[in-house]
């Protein structure tokens, strides 16, 4: 009797050891899957045990996880590629407009071509920024602003204007980023076009971007001669575009005429 108990105890210890090894084997496989390493598989003995079912289940879930991880990566590559292509296509269109503008016979029409080209490029740079982010749907608008400034500066390279910036990181999704980029382009372009008539030096544009509790504030200010907003609203396409875009953002715009013109756009991020 005693020897039977001893044998049973020994068998039980062996079983415990086997179970422990199998659990450890399965855990290692789970750890590997957690690290997205799908090469490992839990061993299945074919003994119709519950442990076999657990091992089989882990292996099968690993295969499914691997497959969805791969398709997720493929989607990311595709979205990245789309942003890249949209940006390139817009750049091509803007180049075509540029070529066309060279044939413009007067300054007025040349300006129209330039405005159109810069609006397109404003959108193109958004797609370029998205291409470089990991998210592909959101971007830091502060990082994007330098692209816009460079673009406008190169269009008005004959003007000596200093642009100062004070930018806080503001993360925007593409739905907000595109209208915001067009607003920025219009506001800065307006400064170049209208603010500094008659000024030879000391021309300054300041751009401030702030974000507090989900409300973003974009301010563009110049030290020029100031504008009559009412008159501009009636006449300028740029101004009506700004109003439409602010409306699209569900935001508001406030104008100030004090030592130049200040436009302050507020919207929920």
């Amino acid at each position: 009797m005693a020897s039977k108990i001893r044998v049973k105890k020994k068998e039980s210890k062996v079983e415990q050891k086997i179970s422990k090894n199998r659990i450890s084997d399965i855990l290692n496989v789970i750890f590997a899957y957690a690290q997205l390493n799908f090469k490992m598989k839990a061993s299945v003995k074919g003994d119709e045990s519950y442990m076999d079912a657990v091992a089989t289940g882990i292996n099968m879930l690993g295969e499914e996880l691997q497959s969805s991880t791969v398709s997720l990566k493929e989607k990311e590559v595709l979205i990245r590629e789309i942003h890249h292509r949209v940006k390139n296509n817009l750049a091509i269109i803007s180049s075509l407009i540029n070529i066309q503008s060279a044939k413009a016979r007067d300054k007025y029409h040349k300006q129209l071509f330039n405005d159109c080209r810069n609006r397109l490029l404003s959108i193109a740079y958004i797609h370029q920024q998205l291409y470089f982010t990991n998210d592909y749907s959101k971007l830091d608008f502060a990082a994007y602003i330098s692209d816009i400034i460079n673009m406008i500066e190169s269009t008005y390279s004959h003007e000596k204007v200093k642009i100062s910036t004070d930018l806080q990181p503001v993360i925007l999704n593409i739905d907000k980023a595109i209208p915001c980029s067009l607003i920025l382009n219009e506001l800065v372009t307006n400064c170049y076009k209208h603010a500094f008539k008659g000024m030879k030096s000391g021309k300054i544009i300041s751009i401030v971007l702030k974000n507090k509790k989900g409300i973003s504030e974009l301010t563009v200010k110049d030290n020029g001669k100031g504008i009559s907003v009412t008159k501009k609203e009636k006449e300028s396409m740029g101004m009506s575009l700004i109003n439409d875009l602010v409306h699209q953002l569900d935001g508001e715009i406030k104008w100030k005429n004090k030592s130049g013109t200040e436009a302050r756009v507020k919207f929920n991020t």
Partner: protein
Amino acid sequence: MKKSKIETGVFSILMGDDNICRTIVKEKAEINLNDAKAATEAVIRLSDGEIGPILVDLKKIKSISKDAREHFTMKGRKAYVNAIGLVVKSPVSMLIGNFFQGINKSSVPTKLFTSEKKAILWLAKFV
């Protein structure tokens, strides 16, 4: 009872007089995509391409690969069966059966049974 029978490496497939096809997974079978395709071909041959219900006895299965599971979902291809009754018993077969109810859900009604009789009763409605 049996009209005809086809043996593949991992399945025994036969057509019953009740026009319900039976697929029995052999002991410790490790099913891959080629096995799955061979089973489909055998079912089509036994049923002369007529669509009907099928009983799959998974009781002795050891494992089944992902592509084989996907093949059996019949998504993206013509389904030659209109209902699947899965007979399970061992923990592994229960687990695999449950995959066919969720992650690898078939495009036709699929039900798990622990009794072959009950499975046949349910499948008879699809004849």
